[in-house]
């Protein structure tokens, strides 16, 4: 009985998920404001790469990572790629999702149709990942052009960035169902920035005291950075299985919780 209930809840119709995505494609054409957000989201990690990766890199010189020597920019670039995948998906499932949920009543209208809460969650997440992947694809192009990874590395890393987008997008969606108002987004932004600084993005985590290192290894962006960096640099160890598992749990768990919350909030 329980399993059939769960199955009924998570069975999705591709057509209905497609319709949820279709709505967002339509909204894209609604005006320039969306494009401004879209483009600014792309430039942020690129600017960090140029300023810190290349700028600071000139001071730092090469560094040895897992026994292999590489330029500092080549070390930082995959991290910026992971950040780009994270923030691209998050921008969609937090800000935009919250707005549709709370203010525009978009999902209220959708739930009067055959579409189920879980299908809304899946559609919104896929859309968020499409947006994030647009960033990461272009970013990977830059990395290859700048000699910061190989074409093979880029091709291997791209699916990993999709997984990163799914993981953060899903958890972000769940978090935004818990948001009380816009003030809470400041908190979210701070958290996101802390992750950005302390996830092995700018220096290997081994440089930190052991306690801090372990703490960082529990946070999500660390796993995203580790995975993407391994694939970009070609230094792949069994550890990426842990990274993949961590991100997969985030994706599935976030999606499940988000759709439960949407149902609770709107199907009163």
């Amino acid at each position, binding site marked *: 009985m329980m399993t059939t209930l769960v199955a009924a809840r998570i069975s999705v119709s591709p057509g209905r998920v497609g*319709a*949820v995505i279709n709505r967002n494609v339509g909204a894209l054409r609604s005006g320039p404001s969306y494009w401004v957000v879209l483009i600014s989201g792309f430039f942020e990690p690129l600017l960090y790469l140029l300023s810190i990766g290349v700028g600071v890199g000139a001071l730092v010189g090469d560094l040895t990572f897992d026994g292999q020597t590489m330029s500092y920019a080549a070390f930082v670039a995959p991290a910026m790629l992971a950040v780009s995948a994270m923030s691209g998906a998050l921008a969609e499932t937090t800000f935009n999702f919250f707005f549709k949920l709370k203010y525009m009543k978009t999902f209220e209208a959708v*739930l009067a*149709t*055959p579409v189920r809460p879980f299908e809304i969650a899946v559609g919104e997440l896929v859309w968020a990942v499409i947006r994030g992947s647009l960033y990461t694809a272009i970013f990977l192009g830059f990395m290859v052009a700048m000699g910061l990874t190989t074409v093979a590395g880029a091709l291997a890393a791209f699916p990993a960035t999709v997984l990163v987008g799914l993981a953060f997008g899903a958890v972000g969606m769940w978090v935004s169902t818990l948001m009380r108002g816009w003030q809470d987004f400041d908190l979210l932004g701070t958290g996101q920035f802390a992750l950005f600084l302390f996830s092995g993005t700018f220096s290997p985590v081994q440089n930190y005291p052991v306690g801090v290192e372990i703490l960082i290894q529990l946070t999500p962006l660390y796993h995203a950075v580790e995975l993407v960096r391994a694939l970009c640099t070609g230094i792949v160890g069994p550890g990426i299985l842990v990274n993949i598992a961590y991100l997969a749990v985030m994706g599935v768990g976030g999606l499940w919780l988000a759709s439960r919350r949407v149902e609770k909030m709107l*199907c*009163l």
Partner: protein
Amino acid sequence: MADQSLISARGLVKRFGDFTAVDGIDLEVAPGEAFGFLGPNGAGKSSTMRMIGCVSTPTAGELRILGMDPVRDGTRIRARLGVCPQLDNLDPDLSVRENLTTYARYFGVSRAEARRRADELLEFVQLSDRANGKVEPLSGGMKRRLTIARAMVNEPDLVLLDEPTTGLDPQARHLVWERLFRLKQRGTTLVLTTHYMDEAEQLCDRLVVMDGGKIVAEGSPRALIENYSTAEVVELRFADGLDSNAQYAAKLDGIGERVDPLPDRVLLYADDGDAAVAEVHRRGLSPASVLVRRSTLEDVFLHLTGRTLVD
């Protein structure tokens, strides 16, 4: 026969926490019927509509829509419903036409067919000239018409309209009535809520009056008037102002079936209005104005739901 009903409810209850919004109602709506809910603010009309629309789960009781169980078959039921909620929830990010085409996609309507239906429906609600415009600049009445059009984009068997014409000007209301009447002629079943008695009389074959989550009366508009009011109503206004209307009412006691003092006038419910007026004069009272009119649903409504708010 419950099997033939599009909507069938037995002891339907909706509670929010320990507040009971819908308190055990029974309903049967037959195919092709236009069925109305009347009732004061907070009576539980929208709560009932949302349960029928399969977006809100009943707390207790039995509910079947289109012969199916809303909890198990919600998706299949909603595929055949058209819903116009009390508050418009159009998509401001989309154009007027896209609001319809996008919505059609949720029902699995193909792109080309969605486009065809959208244009036809925009024509139907007289919004064709705004098709490419945004939703935001539309007037309240235009938005309402667009929401009604959106409710029809899946060619539903059953259309739920929660206060379809609230806030519309008389022209727009008549347009909506006419369109709803045409839908009904095509065999679509309509369920609507309204605060307008003329709307209920115009559109509904049968209606229920809800109050405090319960159904307090049920029948055709005509039957309700016959059962709960008299054929005619006399409206008396007294000018001298020495006595309150309550005191006048005391003096009018026994004329007609019921005397109802309002702050500005006294209503006399009588089957023969002229005879009642004659009796008023015989008692030596000389009202400043006298109006004899037919009873309306409004009289029924006020009688059944009390005057607390209206006073």
